[in-house]
């Protein structure tokens, strides 16, 4: 690609990204913040599916653990935000390793069901352990992230916190895929037997990836808690895990920036459709069905294929 075109391909989206929150309404910016949060959590689900072939419906649990750790340490104990986020990631990764070790011996539909079972267990425990989580009443008064006295307290400011983090993680993800471990993962996905013969410990790699995915979910949960300043069980039910999986598949799990497109689809579209009145839920579901049938590789895959098809001309 000539330098000028390369500059345009990267520069124009960046400019649009930077200018968007200043021209959009506060409501839209709020949705875009959620899209950023969902991108981070969905990225974890997307690379599990794309690189390891693991369908995870447990991401809502780690998202919840991150949010509750932040709520507990920052709101109840008054500790700074990095402590809450770090505690969330530590707890999530520990649980993911502990539970992932036996569960990742399963494969296919069994594994999908096992992660779903985890999601349900998490949802019930978040509700039943109300001495810890506040149950349906939730925990309020979570402080904003405010390094050096600058509080990320509006959607606009938070937009410029969450999206750089999300983009950084996407770049790291891209690098991971092209590292030695990434190649090992691809070998493992495409030919498990050959990978095993090459001396790759497949099970260990899967557990590592599951742990990494849980860390992303937890980080997104912590950011979510700081953004909305109030957390309750409703945000961490199994339907949230289903949304994370949907966004990963809709965006396309084989492209790095697929989760961004998927996250925009599931956050912005339902809100935009809500002007249609009560029928909007049905229209959203129909759009979902159409996307699954028409774009088997997701939005990311469709755009990439289109780009490759026109590139030589």
């Amino acid at each position: 690609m000539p330098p000028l075109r390369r500059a345009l391909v990267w520069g124009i989206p960046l400019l649009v990204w930077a200018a968007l929150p200043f021209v959009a309404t506060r409501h839209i910016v709020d949705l875009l913040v959620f899209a950023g949060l969902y991108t981070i959590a969905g990225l974890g689900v997307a690379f599990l599916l794309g690189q390891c072939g693991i369908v995870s419906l447990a991401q809502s649990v780690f998202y919840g653990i991150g949010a509750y750790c932040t709520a507990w340490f920052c709101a109840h104990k008054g500790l700074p935000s990095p402590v809450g986020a770090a505690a969330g990631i530590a707890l999530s990764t520990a649980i993911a390793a502990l539970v992932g070790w036996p569960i990742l011996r399963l494969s296919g539909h069994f594994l999908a069901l096992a992660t779903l079972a985890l999601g349900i267990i998490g949802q019930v425990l978040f509700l039943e352990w109300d001495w810890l989580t506040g149950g349906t009443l939730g925990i309020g008064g979570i402080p904003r992230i405010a390094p050096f006295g600058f509080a990320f307290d509006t959607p606009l400011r938070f937009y410029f916190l969450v999206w750089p983090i999300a983009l950084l993680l996407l770049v790291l993800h891209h690098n991971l895929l092209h590292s030695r471990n990434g190649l090992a993962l691809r070998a493992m996905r495409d030919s498990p037997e050959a990978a095993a013969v090459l001396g790759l410990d497949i099970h260990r790699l899967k557990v590592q990836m599951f742990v990494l995915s849980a860390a992303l979910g937890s980080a997104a949960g912590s950011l979510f808690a700081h953004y909305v300043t109030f957390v309750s069980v409703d945000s961490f039910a199994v339907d949230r895990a289903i949304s994370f999986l949907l966004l990963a598949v809709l965006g396309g799990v084989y492209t790095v920036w697929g989760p961004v497109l998927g996250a925009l689809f599931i956050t912005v579209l339902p809100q935009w459709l809500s002007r249609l009145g009560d029928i909007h839920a049905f229209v959203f579901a129909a759009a979902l069905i159409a996307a699954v049938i028409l774009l088997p590789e997701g939005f990311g895959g469709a755009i990439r294929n289109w780009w490759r098809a026109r590139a030589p001309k």
Partner: protein
Amino acid sequence: MSLSLLFQSVLSGLTNGFVYGLVGLGLASIFRGTRIINAMQGDFALIGGITAVLLLERFGWPMAPAFAAAVAVGGIAGWLMEVLLIRPLRRRGGSEDSYLLLTLGVAFAVSALVLYTVGRDSHSLPGLGGEGIVVIGDAAIRTHALWLIAISLAAMGALRLFFAKTALGLSMMAAALDADGALTTGINVPLMRTLTFVLGGLVGGLAGVLVGPLVTVYFDMGLLLTLKGFAAAILGGLANPMGAIVGGVTLGLLESLAIVTVSSGYKDVIAMAILIVIMIAMPNGLLGRRLRKGG
């Protein structure tokens, strides 16, 4: 804990178990015939249940034809689904996961459509045998629950005979096991796949009219039913539709025992934890390999 309380909870667990088993029976039948996990099996029950509610309440149909029509509508829904959605996806070469997502999307669509047309109210269906109660020892069970158990067992037996003895059932099995081979012997494979979904829809619609009197029919009931049915089918061994009933009853009993021994809040935790353990320890389901037939 008194013995009668335990017995009562066993009875209610048994009833719930047959509900899960009936949903699982449809799921496993569709899986066996097409290798698709149908994430909207519970919504077939919603379609059947809500059809029965509308026919009884708005159109004043008598109970028997209304229930029969509701089951038939479930079958029609299965037919429409296969012809309009599954078939185009198959033609475009859908992966295993894309079918799961497609059916999940249909589940959302059905639920949203019921919300839009009928509203968010819960509707109760009259039970078979009215509101009568049968007393067994110290415990009581609704007459309807006995009907539910009898009909579930009958449906299971009928499906078993259908797949093992009739030409159509054998053709459907052949189409599922070896599509190319079946094609060369003159079996209309696409038709068999469609019929598999019709069958799944019929079983789902039946589950709907049988569940309606126990738990109410409402727009959001599908997903939870699907989950429990899925768990039942996996417990019994996914490839063995008859196992779904066994798996469902096991799940229902475990749940009700969890309620009396621990607390009602933890019933799903215990059921799900046991499910994970069984999947790891007994990957072929409770019935194991011995009873598995035809893939």
